[in-house]
């Protein structure tokens, strides 16, 4: 859900391992009030104590209540994800016979220069967007936190980009950064500078996409940081000020350390969403790969991995290769998240 306006909770928390089976617990049942006592006469087959099966049956309303999610999840998520693994070892166009090809898709992937270029594009765009985004978000959050006036106004205005349709904003950026008629080039000309061919240069294409992502998510991250800042007790600041610490010192030895869990959260979220950029290049430079080898813009500079995946799977109907791409990419994202996690965690132990 790279397009969702709000990231959900990080997948941490009181997770119980999948080892806890349905039979593994004999939980007390506070749900049963005096009005719903179990019938005194039990069927003979049930034995002297209510067996596990009866305990399950008695809770049919709860199982029924949670069943829609698990039903939909199994059919439309779990099964497809596993099936994608299976598909990555097949050659299949979606219509004809499937053909088992072993690791051939992955071998082809390894030797596919376009795949590696798409990975490079994705990483460059991600770095170009995430670093300024999180930095500016932190600055904005500290500034909003330092004042008492207009804060509600600032919060709403900063948040709005994150709920705006990505397609609409991509079209807007396409118009504003247009080589010939865009507002940006008009301003440059007005300043007697030469116009920049934003949409046809390898680096400016990436810069435009990264700017779009920065515009959309800086405010959101600022609001998240702001919530963290407001949770820091003001006595800490006062004590530091009493000890003669200046604002810079206070920022680096109080604010940043106490904000670290939240910084970690925003780094993980913006890594996961930033690496999945698809709509931006698809709207700006997208076309059917079957007819246009330049998809992703001139020189394919805006061809992100997900856009490449989409072309292989749904324009070329190469489902096996698409499955290989998307799995390889998911593992890459996982790897980067883990590396990020370790980096931010390690800083925590520094005195």
């Amino acid at each position, binding site marked *: 859900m*790279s*397009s969702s306006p*709000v990231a*959900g*909770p990080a997948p941490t*928390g009181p*997770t*119980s391992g999948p080892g*806890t*089976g349905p*039979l593994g617990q004999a939980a007390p*049942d506070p*749900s049963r*009030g005096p*009005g*719903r006592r179990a019938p005194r006469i039990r069927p003979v087959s049930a034995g002297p104590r209510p067996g596990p099966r009866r*305990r*399950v049956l008695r*809770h049919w309303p*709860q199982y029924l209540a*949670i069943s*829609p*999610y698990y039903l939909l*999840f199994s*059919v*439309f998520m779990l099964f*497809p*994800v596993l*099936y*994608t693994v299976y598909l990555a070892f097949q050659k299949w166009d*979606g219509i004809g016979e499937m053909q088992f090809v072993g690791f051939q898709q992955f071998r082809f992937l390894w030797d596919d220069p376009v795949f590696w270029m798409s990975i490079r594009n994705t990483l460059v765009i991600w770095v170009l967007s995430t670093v300024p985004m999180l930095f*500016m978000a932190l600055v*904005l959050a500290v*500034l909003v936190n330092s*004042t008492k*006036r207009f804060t*509600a106004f600032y919060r*709403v205005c*900063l948040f*709005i*980009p994150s*709920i*705006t*349709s990505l397609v609409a904003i991509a*079209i807007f950026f396409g*118009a*504003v950064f247009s080589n*010939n008629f865009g507002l940006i080039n*008009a301003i440059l*000309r007005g300043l007697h500078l030469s116009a920049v061919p934003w949409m046809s240069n390898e680096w400016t294409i990436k810069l435009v996409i990264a700017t779009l992502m920065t515009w959309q998510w800086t405010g959101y991250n600022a609001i*998240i940081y702001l*919530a*963290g800042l407001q949770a820091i007790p003001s006595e800490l600041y006062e004590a530091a000020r009493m000890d003669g610490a200046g604002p810079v010192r206070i920022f680096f030895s109080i604010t940043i350390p106490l904000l670290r869990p939240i910084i970690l959260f925003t780094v993980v979220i913006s890594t996961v969403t930033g690496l999945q950029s*698809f709509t931006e290049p*698809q*709207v700006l430079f*997208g076309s059917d790969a079957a007819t246009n080898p330049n998809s992703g813009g001139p020189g394919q500079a805006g061809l992100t991995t997900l856009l490449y995946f*989409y072309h292989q799977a749904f324009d070329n109907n190469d489902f096996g290769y698409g499955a290989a791409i*998307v799995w390889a990419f998911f593992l890459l*994202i996982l790897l980067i998240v883990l590396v990020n996690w370790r980096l931010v965690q390690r800083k925590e132990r520094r005195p």
Partner: protein
Amino acid sequence: MNGMNRTRLRGLGVHVILMAGVVISVFPFYWIVVMATNTSQDIYRYPPKLWFGDNLLTNLRHLFARMDFFGSLANTMIVAVCTTVLVLFFDSLAAFAFAKYEFPGKKFFFGVLLSMYILPTQLAIIPQYEIMVQLGWLGTLKALVVPAAANAFGIFWMRQYTSTSVPDELLDAARIEGAGFFRQYWHVVLPCVRPALAFLGIYTFIGAWNDYILPLVMLVNPDKLTLQVALAQLYAGHSTDYSMVMSGVLLSVIPLVLVFTFFARGFIADATKGALR
């Protein structure tokens, strides 16, 4: 005196920077209106027009001639409304079971909910497409609504709220009067969790309204598209007629933004809560 001035100056500097942030955040909306109300020639001209024009109606007439705007709007509304209603119902119901009942396997099921949360949709999208082909749902709105009808985030969010905000005494009282699980849900839980439902509803609605990749893949029928897909296609086909395309962008974006600003304060507070838990 001097110190006070400096403090005041710093305060002013803070607001100048923040206002710059605000201007950058809302500038695209202003510029979308400028482009949508002028002619493409006005925008092409150098220097370009910077203020609203009076060409909106002409632009809209061209827009309606080139795309089925109201059809796409209706499709988007149907998808967003149906998804939202189903998500609110299924998620809050499941959340009630998780928050207030013990049943065998509860921990296991909740663990699945939390751990499967990280799976990205893209990993599932090829087989999802194939499933829709098999069901005969490809090209229909069902292909978008049904898979999205219940989600882990919503259950998680609603469970948190239900466990803290629905008093056990009320549930006990309902039980004494003989109300079963579903009547408790309807008469006790639903009225109590309305604030959490409001956030989840807006969140789901905006997400469904703005979704792009799933409609792009599933809606193969060119005369049954959502707004986002239809606008992207319009842009791909007529990228030089800015003012016409922008009038479509304007109509698709501004209502949502206006509605959002109306609910914004509570929504933003809930969004940070939801994100940081």
